[in-house]
C-alpha cells in the first residue's frame, strides 16, 4: 500500500508540496567578538605611514665610579666627558589599513527574514569583523610590510616585536639593547610549561625593568589551563613543584569553558592580571603575551568608521575601515609563550 509521504514533493505534484517549512526565529553567531589586546592599548594619533618613536636606556652601573681627589673633569685621574644619548634609538611600524565591505540587495532589504539581513545589520557585522582583524594583526607574527604598488602595508605584530633576535622586515630592527631577553620567551615545544620556566619569564622581565610593572598575561586556552590549573594549589603545599596530580582544576576546566573574566593576582611580582585572549585571534592556543600596556600603544590614523557608497540600483552598500599601527615602546619589558609540551 502506497502512502502519501512527505518526501513526495516534486513540484508541482506530490503530497508534500503543500507542507510548510519551519525556520526557527533564531540565529546563532558563534564567534568570539572580544578584542582584549586592542582594548588594552593606549590610543594616540598617527600622522604618517611610518609611525616612529624613540627609546632609550641607561648604561651599565659602574661600581668603580670614583673620582681621584682634586681631579678635574677631563684630566688625568678625572673622568672623560661622555655622550649620554648614544643608545637613543628610533623604532617604527607601518600603518595597516583594515577594511571590510558590505552590501545588501534591494530585494533582501525589504524581505522579512528570520535574521535581519539588512544593511544596518550588515554594517554592524562588518564592524565586528574588522575589530577581530585588528586584534588578529596585533597578536600575529607578521613582519611589517611597506606599502607599494600592488602591495598593502602591514604592521609588525606582537609575535615579531617580542623576539630575542633582530627581525628583518620593512621597519627598523630592534637594537640589541632593547630586544626581549631570551628568558622571557618560552618557545621550546619539548619542555613542559613548568612553574620554574614561568617564574624565569617573569624574572627575566623584572631584571630588564627593575620594577613591578602593570603586567597583563593575555593567554590562549592551553596556556591559561597550564598556568592557572596546572600551577595553582592548596596553600599548604607552597613548596611543591609542578606535579599534575597535585594540581587543582579551575574554571577553565578542560579548555572548553572559556570565560572572559579578568583574574587579578597579588604576589611577588606585584599585581598581575590574566585575561583570556580571543582564541580566534591568536596564532594558536599555546600562545600568550605578557604585556605592560604602558609599553604599548595603538597609533590610529583613522578610527573605525562606516562609509556608505552610492546605491547604483542594486542595493545599499558601504564599507567599514580603520587604520592604525602597533607601537611597542619597550620590547625588553614584554614576554611571550609560543610553545610548550603538554
Amino acid at each position, binding site marked *: 500500500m502506497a502512502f502519501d509521504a512527505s518526501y513526495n514533493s516534486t513540484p508541482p505534484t506530490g503530497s508534500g508540496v503543500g507542507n510548510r517549512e519551519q525556520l526557527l526565529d533564531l540565529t546563532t553567531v558563534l564567534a568570539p567578538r572580544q578584542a582584549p589586546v586592542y582594548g588594552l592599548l593606549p590610543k594616540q594619533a598617527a600622522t604618517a605611514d611610518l609611525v616612529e618613536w624613540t627609546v632609550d636606556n641607561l648604561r651599565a652601573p659602574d661600581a668603580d665610579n670614583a673620582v681621584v681627589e682634586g681631579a678635574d673633569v677631563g684630566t688625568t685621574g678625572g673622568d672623560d666627558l661622555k655622550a649620554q644619548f648614544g643608545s637613543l634609538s628610533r623604532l617604527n611600524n607601518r600603518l595597516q589599513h583594515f577594511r571590510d565591505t558590505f552590501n545588501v540587495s534591494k530585494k533582501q532589504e525589504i524581505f522579512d527574514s528570520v535574521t535581519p539581513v539588512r544593511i544596518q545589520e550588515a554594517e554592524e557585522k562588518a564592524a565586528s569583523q574588522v575589530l577581530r582583524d585588528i586584534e588578529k594583526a596585533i597578536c600575529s607574527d607578521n613582519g611589517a610590510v611597506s606599502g607599494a604598488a600592488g602591495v598593502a602595508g602591514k604592521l609588525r605584530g606582537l609575535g615579531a616585536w617580542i623576539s630575542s633576535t633582530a627581525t628583518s622586515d620593512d621597519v627598523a630592527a630592534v637594537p640589541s639593547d632593547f630586544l626581549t631577553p631570551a628568558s622571557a620567551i618560552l618557545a621550546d615545544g619539548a619542555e613542559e610549561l613548568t612553574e620554574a620556566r614561568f617564574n624565569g619569564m617573569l624574572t627575566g622581565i623584572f631584571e630588564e625593568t627593575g620594577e613591578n610593572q602593570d603586567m597583563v598575561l593575555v593567554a590562549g586556552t592551553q596556556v591559561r589551563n597550564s598556568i592557572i590549573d596546572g600551577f595553582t594549589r592548596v596553600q599548604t603545599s607552597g613548596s611543591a613543584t609542578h606535579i599534575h596530580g597535585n594540581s587543582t582544576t579551575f574554571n577553565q576546566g578542560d579548555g572548553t569553558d572559556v570565560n572572559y573574566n579578568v583574574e*587579578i593576582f597579588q604576589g611577588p611580582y606585584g599585581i598581575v592580571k590574566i585575561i583570556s585572549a580571543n582564541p580566534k585571534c591568536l596564532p594558536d592556543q599555546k600562545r600568550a603575551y605578557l604585556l605592560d600596556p604602558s609599553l604599548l600603544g595603538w597609533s590610529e590614523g583613522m578610527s573605525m568608521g562606516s562609509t556608505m557608497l552610492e546605491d547604483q540600483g542594486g542595493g545599499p552598500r558601504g564599507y567599514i575601515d580603520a587604520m592604525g599601527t602597533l607601537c611597542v615602546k619597550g620590547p625588553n619589558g614584554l614576554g611571550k609563550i609560543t610553545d610548550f609540551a603538554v
Partner: protein
Amino acid sequence: MSNLPTEDELFENQFRVLNKQMEATFNPKMEQKRIQGARKSASFYKGKEHPILGKHIGSIPMNEYYAMNKKYGVGFSNDDEFMKYLNNKVLMPNGMAANKF
C-alpha cells in the same frame, strides 16, 4: 584640511565598538550573569594560592574591566590604593575575590 580625529574622539572611539557590545549586554539580566561568572571563578581560588602569581584578589568581568579602564585610565589596576579600595569595598563583599588585598 585634516580629518584626523581629536584626542577626545580617539578616546571615545577606543571603546566605541566594545561599548556597543556592552550596550547590548549591559542589562540587569546579563550583568547578573557576569557577576555570577566572576563569583564562580573567585570561589575556585578560595583557600588556594598561585606559587608564582600569589593570591587571587579579584575576578572582574571583561566588560566591566574595560569600562573601568576607560573611566580611570589604562593602568588603574596597578594602583595599590585603588585596588585595595576596589577589593575591600566592591569585590570582596560581592564574592568576586578570594582574598582580601
